[in-house]
């Protein structure tokens, strides 16, 4: 049996760097095959990979089963849309603003929710997210049920985000940056302390760690990254939809994390890719793709109960020498 602490592995980092290089080459490859349509789809997958990764940090490393992560995703999207409505189209203003709004919300929601445990935490985070959802659909100036559409994509200096490959690369860079940050964080003191709190909260309190502060900060970091993903998704479809805030969205994100691997750094990203790809492929063949997807999920849960990423780690670990 292995330690529950997530340790860095050079192999895993090299593999990730390789995958990123290949992903960076995807747009020209798709263009060469005349499949430009899929560039936009791939960008969407990357955005969901980012938001699932941010949730995985909260759930898998912080040990907090948050069922309201959509709140931060949606808040980021609405911030960008509202700012654009007000005539502020620059990504250098509206994207940081999206992150800031998510961070502020997470402070408030986390401060209250973290006083509860287990199923109560799940319910209270869900309740906060639903409050935001109902706020969004009740705001006629924000488009109510229809959501708030963006006249154009955000301005990003010399880069033209309306150009699909450029947008794809920006999404890929955002995901890469966040994964790199989380890789550093999880292996630095903060991340180790966080994982130890997940393992045994009362003992950490007994060793002199301000447990609540650590958990809140973890929650806020996850929310910040979800806010950035929200800014991206609003630009992607040029729409801030209330669906982004709905509880089903939070649920989907949790499924992605569970399928990919709770507490594995790349778990969220893997889960998002697998789920969205499966959805896309299955929808081609049958209108009953939901049922087929359910079967695949069952298979994953039975074959790889700790998620796909953990299962792959296991394959790698067999090849690696033990310390």
């Amino acid at each position, binding site marked *: 049996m292995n330690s529950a602490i997530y340790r860095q592995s050079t192999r895993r980092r090299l593999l990730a760097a390789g995958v990123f290089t290949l992903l960076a080459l995807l747009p020209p490859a798709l263009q060469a095959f005349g499949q430009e349509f899929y560039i936009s789809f791939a960008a969407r997958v990357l955005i969901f990979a980012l938001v699932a990764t941010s949730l995985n940090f909260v759930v898998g490393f912080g040990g907090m089963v948050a069922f309201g992560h959509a709140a931060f995703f949606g808040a980021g999207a609405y911030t960008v849309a509202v700012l654009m409505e007000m005539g502020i189209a620059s990504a250098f203003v509206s994207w940081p603003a999206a992150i800031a709004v998510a961070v502020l919300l997470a402070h408030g929601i986390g401060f209250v929710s973290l006083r509860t445990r287990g199923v109560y935490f799940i319910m209270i985070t869900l309740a906060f997210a639903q409050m935001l959802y109902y706020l969004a659909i009740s705001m006629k100036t924000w488009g109510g049920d229809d959501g708030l559409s963006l006249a154009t994509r955000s301005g990003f200096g010399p880069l033209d985000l309306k150009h699909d490959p450029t947008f794809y690369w920006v999404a890929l860079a955002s995901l890469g940056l966040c994964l790199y940050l989380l890789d550093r964080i999880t292996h*630095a003191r903060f991340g180790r302390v966080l994982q130890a709190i997940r393992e045994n909260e009362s003992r950490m309190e*007994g060793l*002199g760690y301000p447990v609540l502060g650590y958990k809140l900060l973890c929650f806020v970091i996850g929310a910040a990254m979800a806010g950035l993903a929200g800014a991206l998704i609003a630009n992607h479809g040029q729409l801030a939809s209330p669906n982004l805030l709905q509880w089903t969205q939070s649920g989907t994100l949790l499924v992605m994390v569970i399928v990919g691997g709770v507490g594995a750094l790349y778990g969220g990203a893997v889960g998002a890719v697998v789920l969205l790809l499966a959805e896309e492929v299955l929808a081609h063949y049958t209108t009953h793709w939901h049922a087929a997807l359910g079967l695949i999920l069952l298979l994953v849960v039975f074959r790889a109960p700790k998620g796909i990423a953990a299962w792959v780690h296991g394959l790698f670990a067999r090849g690696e020498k033990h310390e």
Partner: protein
Amino acid sequence: MSESLLVIDGVSRHFGGVTALAEVSFSVAAGEVHALIGPNGAGKTTLIHQISGAQRPDAGRIVFSGEDLTALPMHTRVQRGMARSWQITNVFNRLTLLDNVVLAVKGRQRDWGSGFRFWQPVDDEQALIDEARGWLAEVGLGGRERTLAGSLAHGEQRQLEVVLALATKPKLLLLDEPMAGTGPEESERMVALIGKLARHVTILLVEHDMDAVFRLADRISVLVGGRLVCTGLPDEVRAHPEVRRAYLGEAA
């Protein structure tokens, strides 16, 4: 008697209608091993909870090094120099022994920057690791650094439990039944360990093993039904009629 490190002043605690502690007052002098004994349900662990900050008393004060800690949370009390062990082993089962102790060492470095370091990989911090190895060696767990705490024998887990508290370098060590569930041989090792520790740190020891208590304790306080019956030297306590009736009589 030297000055008091810990003063428990009129501490009461109720759970619903049940009085677990009724105006308990005594003090622990710097440098002593102070044992807290009493029959099952006397409120010993409840009192440890009030002192360590796991719970707040309904009335009374906890004064440590001249500072009133009653309103402070547990982690702040640990930072002031008070560490506890648990009656039911409370370690990081899914972590290695080394990781367990590294966490305790790290927790001691109190500046805001220490635990909230986001960049430097921990596995590169050799000083931390060396110190943690030292602590493990001190209690005879050297060479087992890579073992998961959950796979240790019960007696070894009890030792780890004490080491975790110890590695925070406390002024006062609260040991809640360190010998709970251990066999005679393991108990003997624990008595030797506590005896060794007592030279450097003040200890408040809750224990059922009377043999160990009378060997280790400089002074003893007796709790019966949430009420303090007496505090005194071992011989005085042994001779105290109410103690004999309420406690030792039962055990004999």
